[in-house]
């Protein structure tokens, strides 16, 4: 290497020809001065066919204006210029160098344009060195594709996780509700039996008493003055027992007892209806009935806090899962009762709208701060102290209403109160109603 003369022009030329990359030399007018084997093999033209012609005659795929400007910039600036397979994959239209295994049709190339000087240091022309990057490109494209797939999968999984979380929250709450429902149903059942015979006994007692008093009246009428004088102790007993008052009071006592029993029976019935162990399926239900039984169940919680004003409109029964809708009412009413202070007022509105029905629970409580209004339907979001609220009530209500193809919205003004509004369609869309009920049935 130290003796340059030892390496002849021919040796250098044959080396350039043999090198495993494309080498071209062009003059300022883009006329080819030199071309090596790589170019011949890939273009299918011999060196003789290439040399002496312009680049554009022998490689018509090259954009002329751009290529000339590129060559020009190398000559003018005496600086390198480059093309990369990423931006310009196929500068020369050569076939792929992975004919069997590759999925790509053409050779990907990187190309370097470099200034070439003659022996005197003047500008001779521009050299092009073209390297084959098909293998790298194919791998890179494959990786990019894989990456896209992974990204897609990732977002699909994120969606799944969100749905799983929602399902879990719902399961948690519905398990809780089912337990409460079972307990309520059990208690109701246990009370129902004794109440049953007490009821029938009281009715019999009432009849017996009527007969008994009729008998007494008959005795009284049958006894005359002589008989009374003969038995003064009878009058004394009658005065002592305050007989007239007793007769009157017994009637009232019986009436009150029957009323009381009616109330117990109704509460038991409401408990059973509310827990609705059997109504996890789509059926026509009267929302007013649902509202009333829900109100009865939580009456103890509300009655000292707020006055409840019902403004029921004229609505027809809708297709829904009664127990679930009752759960929504329960949540909304409980929340309203928690929100109100002194002089609390809860108004329940209902009516028809948009081919469906709406139920509004309006309170005059503290309202919901603006910054959390869009979060209240999120699972586990709660403003109540630890242990007081699960943060599930509203999110569950929301998902129940959505499952019914309805809408649950809120309007709230801090300090003035809130209005929760559930809108539900009269009938469920056919297919989904069945599909959901099948799932619910499991």
């Amino acid at each position, binding site marked *: 290497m130290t003796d340059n003369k030892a390496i002849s022009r021919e040796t250098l030329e044959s080396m350039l020809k043999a090198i495993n990359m494309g080498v071209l030399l062009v003059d300022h007018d883009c006329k080819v001065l030199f071309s090596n084997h790589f170019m011949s093999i890939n273009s299918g033209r011999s060196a003789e066919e290439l040399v002496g012609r312009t680049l554009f005659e022998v490689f018509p795929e090259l954009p002329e204006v*751009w290529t000339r*400007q*590129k060559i020009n*910039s190398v000559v003018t*600036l005496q*600086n390198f210029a480059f093309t*990369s397979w*990423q931006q310009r994959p196929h500068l020369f239209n050569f076939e792929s160098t992975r004919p069997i295994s590759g999925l790509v049709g053409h050779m990907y190339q990187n190309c370097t344009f470099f200034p070439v000087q003659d022996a005197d240091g003047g500008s001779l022309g521009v050299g092009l060195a073209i390297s084959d990057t098909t293998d790298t490109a194919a791998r890179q494209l494959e990786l990019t594709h894989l990456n896209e797939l992974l990204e897609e999968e990732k977002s699909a999984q994120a969606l799944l996780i969100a749905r799983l979380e929602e399902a879990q929250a719902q399961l948690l709450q519905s398990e809780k509700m089912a337990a409460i429902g079972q307990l309520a149903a059990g208690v109701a059942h246990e009370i129902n039996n004794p109440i049953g015979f007490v009821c029938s006994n009281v009715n019999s007692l009432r009849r017996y008493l009527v007969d008994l008093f009729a008998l007494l009246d008959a005795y009284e009428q049958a006894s005359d003055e002589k008989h009374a004088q003969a038995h003064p102790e009878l009058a004394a007993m009658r005065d002592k027992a305050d007989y007239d008052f007793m007769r009157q009071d017994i009637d009232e006592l019986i009436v009150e007892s029957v009323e009381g029993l009616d109330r117990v029976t109704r509460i038991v019935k409401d408990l059973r209806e509310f827990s609705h162990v059997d109504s996890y399926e789509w059926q026509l239900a009267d929302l007013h009935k649902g509202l009333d039984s829900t109100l009865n169940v939580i009456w103890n919680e509300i009655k000292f806090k707020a006055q409840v004003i019902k403004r029921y409109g004229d609505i027809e029964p809708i297709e829904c899962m009664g127990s679930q809708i009752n759960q929504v009412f329960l949540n909304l009413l409980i929340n309203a009762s928690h929100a109100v202070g002194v002089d609390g007022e809860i108004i329940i509105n209902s009516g028809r709208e948009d081919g469906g029905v709406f139920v509004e629970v309006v309170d005059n409580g503290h309202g919901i701060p603006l910054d959390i209004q869009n979060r209240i339907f999120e699972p586990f979001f709660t403003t109540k102290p630890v242990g007081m609220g699960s943060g599930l009530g509203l999110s569950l209500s929301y998902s129940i209403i959505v499952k019914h193809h309805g809408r649950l919205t809120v309007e709230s003004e801090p300090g003035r109160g809130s209005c929760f509004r559930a809108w539900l369609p009269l009938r469920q869309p056919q297919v989904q109603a069945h599909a959901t009920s099948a799932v619910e049935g499991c």
Partner: protein
Amino acid sequence: METLAALTEDQRDALQELMNIAMGQAAERLARLTNTMVTLSVPFIHPLIREQDNLLIPDHLRRSSMIVTRQSFLGELRGEVFVCFGSMGADKLAELLGYSDGGPAQQEELMLDVTNILSGACISGLAKQVAIQVSYDAPSILVHREESANALNELNLNEHLAMVLEIRFEVQAHQFSCDLLICITERTAGVVVRAIDRLLYEL
């Protein structure tokens, strides 16, 4: 070896002068290449910053850069040039450099061309004045972002010395600007400092 960060005011002025000459030559060549009036602003050299891992990049660059390209220069002077393009990229120069359509691949290629021309002009100009040979590898896209936020913060860099050159182009009536960030490896920065000292001595 003294770092570039420790340059005196005189040395800084001399470096500014070196870059002025380099950019002047670049403008003249660009004008010849494009057959148009090309005005290159006097490059403004921001205070030199030496940082271990990240670039303390001037705020205006952080805000505006959408695409950052890079190109290495190799030889006795080693390092990399980063060019920060704004949202417009280099579209204004497309026609002058022979590009016809404005597809995304072509926009990128155009930016790589501009990177190559600018870094070639700066580094070759500098290398010529300190009488050394440099070579270049192909430029590539380093950061390509829809949103500009902190595109440059994520880079993980080796120890280097940086100088930021703010360059404004004016081609015909179109104004175009981009910023060049020249980072020289710690090991070879001495070449520049010696050249500066020689320049100052000759004055």
